[in-house]
């Protein structure tokens, strides 16, 4: 009987078995599948919305009646200078220009741009476009007159532009990406924290935990559960990040892809730390109760921390250098939500990020150790609600 009997699996094997069961049962769970699809659809919807909104104020088409070929480039250059995309279309004469405007093939048409009586034809007034065309026409005229008067335009001084401070446009874009990332991160932390908590209570409520603990130690069960769901969560945030980055590049929503990817990677890295901490806290809280109905009451304190972190992160986006953002970006539990925003805003020095990571790692270590003890003590107490102190005292070998 014993000769052909089973071997004793090691810790790694047990943790892997538990993790594999979590993944396979969760992947087949309708709620999980639906929530994943909804998150992706929301993301794609947001980007599609961005595309639609920005296309309205996007490229303006201006018809230019063929002349010496100088006014077209001048209009485009002026548009670029003030941040309005202008596309120039050549038309043969004034009648064709008018037709094009009436047919809404172009937004405006410039007739006699270099002549004495330039005229801009358009259906709806557009101040930005009017200013662009006006600037180009008058600039060209001024240059012509000066040239006629023998003034050397080559010697005019150029204005050198030097951005001061970190409030550049790129940082703004990165903060927006970081905020979106933090929203996703917050959502996933809550979602997967709930999954962990539900899983713990399910095992306790169905008493299957007695069978499990007859074959493994509580920490092995806890580790397997957190790892399995964590891999799923990581997979989900990576997919969301990849779809987001790809979509943003395809739809041309960002200017600097490298920095976008860097910010997304930062958010993913903080997800790993934040998840490790919150999964542990949620699991331990859940182990104190025996019924799904009681879950809410013990999860509130842990969820509050997450909500606070989220609110501070949103606030930090507006004021990334402020005291509140600076202080909270070091507080374990809050840092995964606040620090990515500060990093994206370029407000966090390398040593600050490193310190926040170290503090967070310490908190994770503490949560695993202390949490593991409470979890072990509370698991087999299947009546009512266990107090943390009782659980610590009842901890088994």
């Amino acid at each position: 009987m014993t000769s052909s009997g089973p071997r004793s699996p090691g810790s790694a094997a047990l943790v892997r078995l538990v993790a594999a069961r979590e993944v396979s049962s969760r992947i087949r769970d309708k709620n999980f599948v639906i929530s994943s699809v909804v998150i992706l659809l929301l993301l794609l919807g947001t980007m599609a919305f961005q595309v639609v909104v920005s296309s309205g104020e996007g490229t303006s088409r201006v018809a230019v009646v063929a002349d010496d070929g100088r006014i077209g480039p001048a209009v485009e250059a002026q548009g670029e200078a003030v941040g309005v995309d202008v596309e120039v279309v050549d038309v043969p004469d004034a009648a064709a220009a008018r037709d094009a405007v009436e047919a809404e093939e172009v937004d405006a048409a410039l007739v006699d741009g270099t002549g004495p009586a330039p005229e801009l034809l358009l259906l709806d007034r557009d101040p930005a476009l009017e200013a662009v065309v006006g600037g180009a026409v008058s600039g060209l005229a001024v240059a012509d007159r000066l040239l006629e008067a023998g003034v050397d335009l080559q010697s005019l001084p150029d204005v050198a532009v030097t951005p001061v401070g970190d409030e550049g446009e790129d940082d703004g874009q990165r903060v927006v990406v970081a905020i979106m990332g933090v929203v996703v991160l917050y959502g996933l932390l809550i979602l997967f924290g709930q999954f962990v908590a539900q899983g713990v209570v399910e095992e306790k409520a169905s008493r299957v935990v007695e069978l499990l603990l007859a074959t493994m130690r509580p920490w092995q069960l806890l580790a397997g559960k957190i790892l399995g769901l964590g891999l799923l969560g990581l997979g989900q945030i990576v997919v969301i990040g990849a779809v987001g980055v790809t979509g943003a590049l395809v739809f041309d929503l960002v200017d600097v892809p490298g920095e976008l990817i860097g910010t997304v990677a930062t958010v993913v890295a903080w997800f790993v730390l934040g998840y490790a901490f919150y999964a542990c806290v949620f699991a331990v809280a859940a182990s104190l109760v025996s019924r799904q109905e009681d879950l809410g009451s013990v999860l509130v304190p842990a969820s509050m921390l997450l909500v606070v972190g989220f609110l501070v992160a949103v606030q930090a986006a507006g004021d990334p250098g402020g005291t509140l953002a600076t202080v909270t970006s070091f507080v374990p539990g809050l840092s995964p939500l606040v620090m990515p925003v500060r990093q994206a805003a370029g407000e966090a020095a390398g040593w600050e990020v490193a310190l926040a990571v170290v503090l967070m790692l310490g908190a994770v270590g503490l949560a695993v150790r202390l949490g593991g003890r409470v979890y072990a003590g509370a698991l087999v107490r299947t009546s009512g609600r266990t107090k943390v102190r009782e659980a610590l005292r009842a901890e088994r070998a």
Partner: protein
Amino acid sequence: MLEFDGLHKSYGANRVLDGVSFAVAPGSMFGFCGSNGAGKTTTMRIAMGLVRADAGEVRWQGRPLDQALRRRIGYMPEERGLYPKMRVGEQLAYFARLHGLDGAAAARAAEHWADRLGLADRRRSRVEELSLGNQQRVQLAAALVSRPEVLILDEPFSGLDPVGVDALAEALLEQVRGGVPVVFSSHQLDLVERLCDAVGILARGSMVAAGPVPELRRREPGRLLRVVVPDAPPGWAAALPGVRVESELAGDTLLELAPGTDDQAVLAAALRTGRVAHFAWREPSLVELFREAVAEPAGEVAA
């Protein structure tokens, strides 16, 4: 040998176990009886490492049970425990793997035990979709699927219909024939009496009686002798030395003999009254042994 040795456990001032000791030989079935709250479940949970004993230990083949040894034990908790949303076959395979079987062996074992316990066509059902009786079978299959060396079952028969009881009893007897020691607790004493090689009766945290049923019967003091003498006058046995008349109804007499009293002298006295229709020691049933054993010892309490 599976040995439970001097288990003590208190919850605060409440002393649940006060030196529980017994041993189960390989290939034998041990019935564990006791009133509600006597400590049966606590004893089993200590063996499975779910409760830590204040003192004492449980040994298998001379070694104290640890996590590795416990993996070779098939266990059925009092409060049934299965994943409600997991399919029967997958669930059994999962438990087999937790006990150390590799993937292929676990799948084979899961299929085998589902078939054995009449769940062949329910392998793909979720546990929550099954009737209570079938859930019970899955629970038993989960205990057996890892080819355990020892079986510890808390109230395995509760909630089963008579057919289910027979199927379970047959499965357990087969394990016993394979050399597995089986410990189970039950309130169904007739079942315990029928199946078990030995029984233990737990009362107030300690084992008040343990051993093979016939031996317990012999040890039982105050056994009754039933003598049916239709022609005897009322009170025929009252004057016999060392004999107390328990009851007498138209010659059907129940007698309690003091220790050392010769039952043959009673037979001789009965024959003197005329025809003796019946003369036999009345074997106490396990139920009577149980009542006797768990009864509050009035004298001790007073002292």
